[in-house]
């Protein structure tokens, strides 16, 4: 900006030069501004005059206005506003996936019995299963879960799809209207085995499983913060 110099010429009319300055400062009335903008549309020299004033005034700001750090909340809100523009609430995202559980269970049962889903640990005897259907944010994801309630273990298999770069998948359990409970992060590999505490196992039948994407290390808040990518109900196998 320091190398900027006002062209010595510019609009001939002194009135136009001052109008350009008043326009740059926002000093014109609505009517005057509309008239000036109509003139700007057809007058390149006048546009250059406005740019020149803006450059000069901005250099006053650079020189005279102190930097003040905004609160970190502004950067956080921007990430949410700009990069998750269609983010629905967690509940809006998961509700369609509570339906069709029986069909999903059948598909999963078929997958297991035909060997598509091979439990990592042969001792796992699934009595609850879930097929997690991809949400609009989770296109291409194929994720299935199987729970052995006797052993207190849940196996989750990601057969297709992956979290976005720099994000991880987190598995949530949703019992009725209660807040989602984190069951842990999915491993980078395709299969993850998660140990379930007894009090969680007792909740399981009829609950919903959901996958959200979270920062590395998992949700910083204890509740889902990223988009829900897949969800489906746990049903008896």
């Amino acid at each position, binding site marked *: 900006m*320091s190398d900027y110099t006002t062209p010595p010429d510019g609009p001939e009319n002194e009135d136009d030069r001052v109008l350009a300055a*008043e326009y740059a400062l926002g000093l014109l009335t609505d009517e005057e501004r509309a008239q000036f903008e109509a003139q700007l549309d057809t007058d390149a020299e006048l546009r250059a005059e406005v740019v020149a004033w803006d450059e000069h005034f901005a250099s*006053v700001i650079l020189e005279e206005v102190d930097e003040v750090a905004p609160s970190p909340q*502004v950067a956080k809100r921007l990430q949410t506003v*700009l990069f998750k523009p269609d983010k629905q609430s967690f509940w809006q995202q998961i509700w369609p996936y509570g339906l069709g559980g029986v069909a999903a269970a059948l598909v999963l049962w078929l997958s297991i019995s035909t060997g598509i889903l091979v439990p990592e640990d042969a001792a796992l005897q699934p009595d609850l299963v879930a097929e997690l259907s991809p949400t609009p944010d989770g296109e291409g994801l194929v994720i299935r879960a199987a729970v052995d309630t006797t052993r207190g273990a849940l196996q989750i298999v990601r057969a297709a799809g992956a979290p976005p770069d720099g994000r991880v998948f987190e598995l949530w359990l949703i019992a009725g209207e209660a807040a989602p409970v984190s069951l842990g992060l999915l491993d980078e590999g395709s299969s993850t085995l998660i140990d379930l505490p007894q009090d969680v196992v007792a909740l399981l039948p009829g609950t919903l499983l959901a996958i959200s994407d979270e920062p590395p290390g998992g949700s910083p808040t204890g509740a889902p913060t990223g988009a829900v990518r897949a969800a489906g109900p746990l049903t008896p196998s």
Partner: protein
Amino acid sequence: MTPQEEVENLIARVAMGDRAAFNRLYDRTSAKLFGVCLRVLNDRVEAEEVLQDVFVTVWNKADSYKVNGYSPMTWLITITRNRAVDRRRAMKLPPVPIETADLMPDSKPGPEASAVAASEARQITACLDELPRARAHLVRRAYLEGDSYADLAQATGVNLNTIRTWLRRSLMALRECLSR
């Protein structure tokens, strides 16, 4: 790369949807732009809302930056300053009073004149210092704080037409000085 080229380069990458570049641009410029918002609005909450709004605009409009002929910081500062002034006017904030005694035209140079002259003063700063101090103050108030003619009339108790005449004369003198 000069700081100016760096900001220019970041804006170009933001125009292509580069989020990392957007975050860098924010880290690099938000404190200055927040200072601008605070100067106009004098209220952290309002200023932060405007700042957020400005960066949403930057993300959405970065591709139009090249066509309008601004240097990168001027583009960012102009968007910010104008947005903050719009907010201030919508809120109908009363202007900070200006002592009438300060308005009497005098020939004394502004207080910073000598210090500024010694450093690499920007052209506009040097030209503002050529104006009578009170007149330069009105121009600064209009730009830095976003005062309208009505605000300046209210702040000084001087009739609006007189204020307008003073400011327009000051702007003409500034323009003459700037083109020297």
